[in-house]
């Protein structure tokens, strides 16, 4: 299956793959973000692969890590093929300045909430999402909690008399 996928990327999307990674028997491709929608679309409908199940979308923040050279944020698409019982990952790196990527809501209904969660917690904008708004954090919360520069032990006081002078950060 791995070789078939490599072959697919080589023939159909020769420019899309930046590098591939094979760790603990799991294959992942780092791809350019422009190609994401087209790749997913052709993999979903592909008669042999049939990656018709989008398991998960999640995101990483590589702040203060050597990995950040390729882009600070990483969005991970977890694709599963019910037909072949095979799972692999598409990973996209996004820059700090412009964390934007195409939405997959046209292909999968699952992407709706998963993308909203990534937006809510990591602040990544999904272009074309029909209803991109917060999902788990309260509306008053500012910032994106899963980013590494969001403080861990400090809560933004919502109803505090000293809101203008918040207590010292404990990191």
């Amino acid at each position, binding site marked *: 299956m791995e070789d078939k996928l490599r072959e697919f990327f080589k023939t159909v999307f020769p420019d899309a793959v930046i590098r591939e990674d094979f760790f603990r028997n799991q294959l992942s491709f780092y791809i350019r973000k422009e190609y994401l929608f087209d790749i997913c679309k052709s993999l979903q409908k592909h008669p042999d692969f049939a990656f018709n199940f989008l398991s998960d979308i999640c995101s990483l923040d590589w702040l203060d890590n050597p990995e950040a050279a390729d882009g600070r944020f990483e969005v991970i698409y977890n694709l599963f093929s019910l037909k072949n019982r095979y799972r692999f990952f598409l990973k996209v790196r996004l820059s700090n300045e412009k964390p934007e990527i195409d939405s997959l809501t046209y292909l999968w209904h699952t992407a709706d909430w998963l993308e909203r969660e990534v937006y809510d917690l990591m602040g990544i904008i999904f272009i074309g999402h029909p209803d991109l708004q917060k*999902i788990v954090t309260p509306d008053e919360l500012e910032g994106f909690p899963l980013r590494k520069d969001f403080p861990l032990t400090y809560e933004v006081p919502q109803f505090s008399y000293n809101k203008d002078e918040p207590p010292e950060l404990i990191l």
Partner: protein
Amino acid sequence: MTEAAGKRTMTLNMGPQHPATHGVLRVELELDGETVVKATPHIGYLHTGIEKNAESKLYYKVIPMTDRMDYLAPMSNNLGYCLAVEKLLELEMPEKVIYARVLLTELTRIASHLVWVGTHALDIGAMSMLLYAFREREMILDIYEACSGQRMMSTYFRIGGLAYDLPDDFDRKVRNILKVLPDRIKDYERLLTDNKIFRKRTIGVAYISAEDAVNCGLTGPTLRGSGVNYDVRKTNPYCGYDKFQFVVPLGENGDVYDRYLIRMEEMRQSLRIVQQALDGMPAGPFRVHAPGIVLPPKEDVLSKMESLIFHFKIITEGFKPPKGAVYQAIESPKGELGYYISSDGTNMPHRMRVRPPSFVNLSALPKMIEGRLVADVIAAIGSIDIVLGEVDR
């Protein structure tokens, strides 16, 4: 009530304190008479930031937090996390650990389904089921207590094995369940399966087609109710599930009734697995021998210098897995529960992502209930089997 262009709709907030939403879920319903025109679930009332919290904890300190996500199936959550970290560390488990884990997670599945059948039946009008289901669940919680000392938040699985060895009367207690439960499940079915009211409330309700179910990312009994054969235990066996014989029940109609039938059958199949695991339970160590990663046996800590040093170092510093990211999916009672753990080579996870089955399943709720009656909303929410602790994390 809004009146625009001759169309009258009413907005009704169901929840977050509604008893049939199984927690703090709010569904904003737009009603035309008794028909649901639009449904928007609002979640997040129980968001505790477990994923963020895990980034500042040593690997083994994350385990107690996983219990608190799906609090009806603590062992499944522990198992998923432990397997993911073990995959990262490339640890092979001894036979006894594998068998004990399979046995306990299957008991967890039964306990979770028992709560489901009780509360779901209660939601749609069959009160007595709740009392019966909780009576049987108590027997399983007794086993948790005997194993780990805790009835609900067991935290019994550890990275590299179990917290303690299985208790002395474990065998007797499990055999008691195996003896009692099949008849009890029959009793439940006598109460519900042919019950006229129950059938009227469930057959054809909250229908979702197989194609839509896959597109919505549904997993677990909710997906199999639509006839899609996807069970992680069979498709990608983990934790030695390929050694056990069981059948994955499939539905045909994709409605609430089929999901009910599947969960009842799953309980029977889980009992089958428990039987096999109990009969085949080997003797041996309950932890893998991996110095520096897994705690050494207590008697060694008290008598040997090296063990004491390792014990001290693991507790204070933890261990450092290699750089890389792994994903481990398991079949929890609700569906595919996945842990994506990214390690940057330090002693804490760089990122721990939980793929929550309840969260994804809940996102398909509008598809199931739009265009249907208000009373069906309750049946639909019940049939998805959500736990809000896991939806919000």
